[in-house]
């Protein structure tokens, strides 16, 4: 059975071809990255609230440090945490087992994809230690600045100066990461289409499989032009071409377009997998079929297509044609309709249900509430181009995207981790610690992010190292808001150690699970042993039911495993 346990550490964590091991490798790597990203957040948050203080564990934060910290925080969180956690970890771990097959279609490609990811992580981390320090131009890397010190003005910089700069390294890291995710995406796509268990029609697949696949395909198409653009930026930096240099026929606006052409679909690439996870969790814990499976799917597809037509809402005031901005504004507002449909369908699933308000469910409900009320709805504020004139590049935007990203990425991942922990470890997480973790995270996340709205409305720009020189931002009560945000953020980050402890401790010493199907769920992963053996199933399941058939009227139990007649 457990063939992998015969192999040593290196085998399991480096050369394994098993999709579950690869998923786990991804997860550990990402935890490592998140620790860096979270630490950076701690440092610059402290600096913002207490500008003159030496930050414990870091020291005095200079302007350069600050720019470097936020840039890498943004990059790590978006590219390595969000994309990685949701496409790579969720996709790798969940897809084969949820569709009832033994492994990915191309296990070797899968391994290769993890290695590329690892290379990208190594490049990213080395970039901090290069002579000139990490990247500092904001995670969006708008060109004339990101071409940086090797810019169009210093043709005499040597090639090695240019190449061994953090700018080149980070761009290369991003290219590697995209390649890794593209390989993963192709793999998911083929696996889902070709390797489903007998009887598992497309409409009987759990929604999360759909969501991850839609996200992968969306990623694949939207990233194409940016890959080309990244090569061009690399050439600008290393060879001295002028693709983005206005004085040589180039145009910095071009990069903004390419970046956001990917960047906006990216946020939906990030959003869809957690929505899938929420669908699983909410349906199981409401003991009800997911309300409107096909409806949700249709809405998702509509949103995916629409998401390619709204990118310039990040550029309303960047000098694009104002008439085009009108069009983008309208599409931006329109894209909220499909999401309204999805969210309302999730909520409808909970109605008339026999709710189990357990840990995964708490994360799921928290995610829906926060994402909708403060994330999605403020998206509408920003989507209104006129208000965006004022709000663009203020803390209002920062608050908006933390309220969309945190509930989806972090809450969604935690919902997933708490839900599937029993499965992949064969042990249980401690519930008390889990509850503590949830409530502290919930409260202090709000404590951190909500003041940013108020600061943003008061006109506080983002990416500013030191507000103390800008008088109008030092009027009461703005410094107080900043301190509240900081203190909450620090507690929020510390709270994560509770989770970390719980996770490691339970993984090694936790209570062994007593049953393979603790949530009484229908989907296939719960119909095999925990943790699943290599190859996932002893005999291949044959699927008879949809994934969400709870409370079928003439049955004794309130759940019906997919592979049960």
């Amino acid at each position, binding site marked *: 059975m457990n063939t992998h346990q015969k192999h040593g550490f290196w085998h399991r964590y480096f050369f394994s071809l098993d999709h579950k091991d690869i998923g786990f490798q991804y997860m550990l790597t990402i935890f490592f990255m998140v620790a860096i990203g979270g630490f950076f957040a701690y440092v610059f948050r402290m600096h913002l609230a207490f500008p003159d203080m030496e930050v414990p564990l870091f020291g005095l934060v200079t*302007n350069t440090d*600050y720019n470097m910290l936020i840039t890498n925080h943004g990059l790590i969180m978006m590219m390595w945490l969000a994309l990685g956690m949701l496409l790579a970890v969720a996709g790798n771990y969940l897809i084969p087992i949820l569709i009832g097959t033994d492994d990915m279609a191309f296990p070797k490609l899968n391994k290769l994809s993890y290695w590329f990811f690892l290379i990208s992580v190594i490049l990213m981390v080395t970039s901090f230690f290069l002579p000139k320090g990490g990247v*500092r131009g904001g995670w969006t890397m*708008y060109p*004339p*600045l990101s071409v940086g010190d090797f810019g169009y003005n210093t043709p005499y910089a040597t090639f090695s100066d240019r190449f061994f700069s953090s700018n080149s390294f980070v761009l290369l890291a991003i290219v590697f990461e995209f390649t890794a995710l593209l390989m993963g995406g192709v793999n998911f796509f083929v696996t889902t289409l070709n390797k489903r268990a007998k009887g598992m029609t497309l409409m009987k697949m759990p929604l999360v499989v759909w969501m991850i696949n839609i996200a992968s395909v969306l990623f694949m198409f939207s990233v194409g032009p940016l890959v080309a653009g990244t090569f061009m930026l690399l050439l600008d930096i290393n060879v001295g071409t002028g693709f983005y240099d*206005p*004085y040589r026929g180039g145009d*910095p*606006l071009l990069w903004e377009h390419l970046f956001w052409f990917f960047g906006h679909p990216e946020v939906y690439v990030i959003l869809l997998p957690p929505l899938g996870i929420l669908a699983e969790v909410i349906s199981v814990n*409401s003991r*009800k*079929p997911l*309300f*409107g*499976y096909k*409806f949700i799917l249709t809405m998702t597809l509509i949103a995916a297509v629409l998401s390619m037509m709204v990118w310039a809402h990040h550029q309303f*005031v*960047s*000098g694009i044609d*104002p*008439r085009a*901005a*009108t069009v983008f*504004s309208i599409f931006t*507002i329109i894209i909220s*309709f499909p999401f*309204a*449909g999805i969210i*309302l369908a999730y*909520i*409808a699933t*909970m*109605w*008339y249900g*026999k*709710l189990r308000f357990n840990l995964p469910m708490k994360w799921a409900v928290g995610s829906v509430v926060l994402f*909708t009320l403060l994330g999605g709805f403020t998206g*509408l*504020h920003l989507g209104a*181009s*006129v*208000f965006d*004139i*004022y709000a663009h*590049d*203020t803390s209002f935007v920062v608050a908006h995207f933390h309220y969309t990203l945190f509930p989806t990425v972090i809450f969604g991942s935690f919902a997933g981790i708490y839900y599937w922990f029993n499965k992949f470890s064969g042990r249980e997480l401690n519930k008390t610690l889990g509850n503590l973790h949830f409530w502290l995270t919930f409260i202090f996340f709000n404590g951190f992010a909500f003041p940013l709205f108020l600061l943003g409305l*008061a006109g506080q*720009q983002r*990416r*500013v*190292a*030191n*507000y103390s*020189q*800008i008088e*109008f931002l030092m009027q009461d009560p703005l410094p107080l808001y900043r301190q509240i945000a900081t203190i909450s953020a620090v507690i929020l980050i510390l709270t994560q150690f509770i989770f970390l402890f719980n996770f490691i401790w339970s993984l090694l010493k936790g209570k062994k699970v007593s049953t393979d199907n603790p949530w009484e769920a229908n989907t296939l992963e719960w119909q095999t042993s925990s943790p699943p053996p290599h190859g996932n199933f002893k005999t291949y399941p044959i699927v008879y039911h949809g994934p969400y058939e709870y*409370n079928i*009227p003439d049955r004794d139990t*309130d759940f019906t495993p997919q592979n049960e007649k």
Partner: protein
Amino acid sequence: MNIFPENASSYGAEIDFIFWLITIVVAVAGVVVLFLVLYPIFNRKKDYTKEQRYLKGDNFKQLRWIYLGIVLLAIADFSFLFKEESTWTKIEETLPNKDLHIAVIGRQWMWEFVYPGPDGKLYTDDDVKAINQLHIPVNATVHMDIQAYDVIHSVFIPNARFKQDALPGRSITRWVKMTKTGEYPLTCAEICGIAHANMKATITVESEEDFNKTIAKLYKE
């Protein structure tokens, strides 16, 4: 409520109005959503029959409430969209007749303001330059050619609800009309390097005569 900085431009109030309009719309929607989520959570004990629970939402009849929600949201959205777009047209797509034409140029890390000299034309030899100090007459429509030398900057005047990125290689003309005299901050809102945080200027809005005096003084220097 003054969660915004004091408004001092002719169109600032309209932008604030849009904000409140959207906020009210989404607050109403938010209360509805919150109720919808919390009700089943606090009503967990109630026992429904299996038939009641086995709701798959695969036909229009069951989905009708959701469609209704989307339609309501659509109506609300479009109601503010029209207002919003007409304001946008007014602010960004049209240029009212100008009283003064200046250039605002961002460079690492200061703002350069160029006024037309005595000949009243910009981009001639007698232009007047000022660093980090912008003077404009009150109640005058000012056209600004926004430009940058090195990297992207962004002109942000919170009190005027004015923001425009300054791109190297491009000149983008926007207008503003200040309605109150006083001194207002102007900051840079796009990261532009080490001293991005310090890249700020002051706008002094003054009466016509004061303004002319200032320019004359600057020209002499």
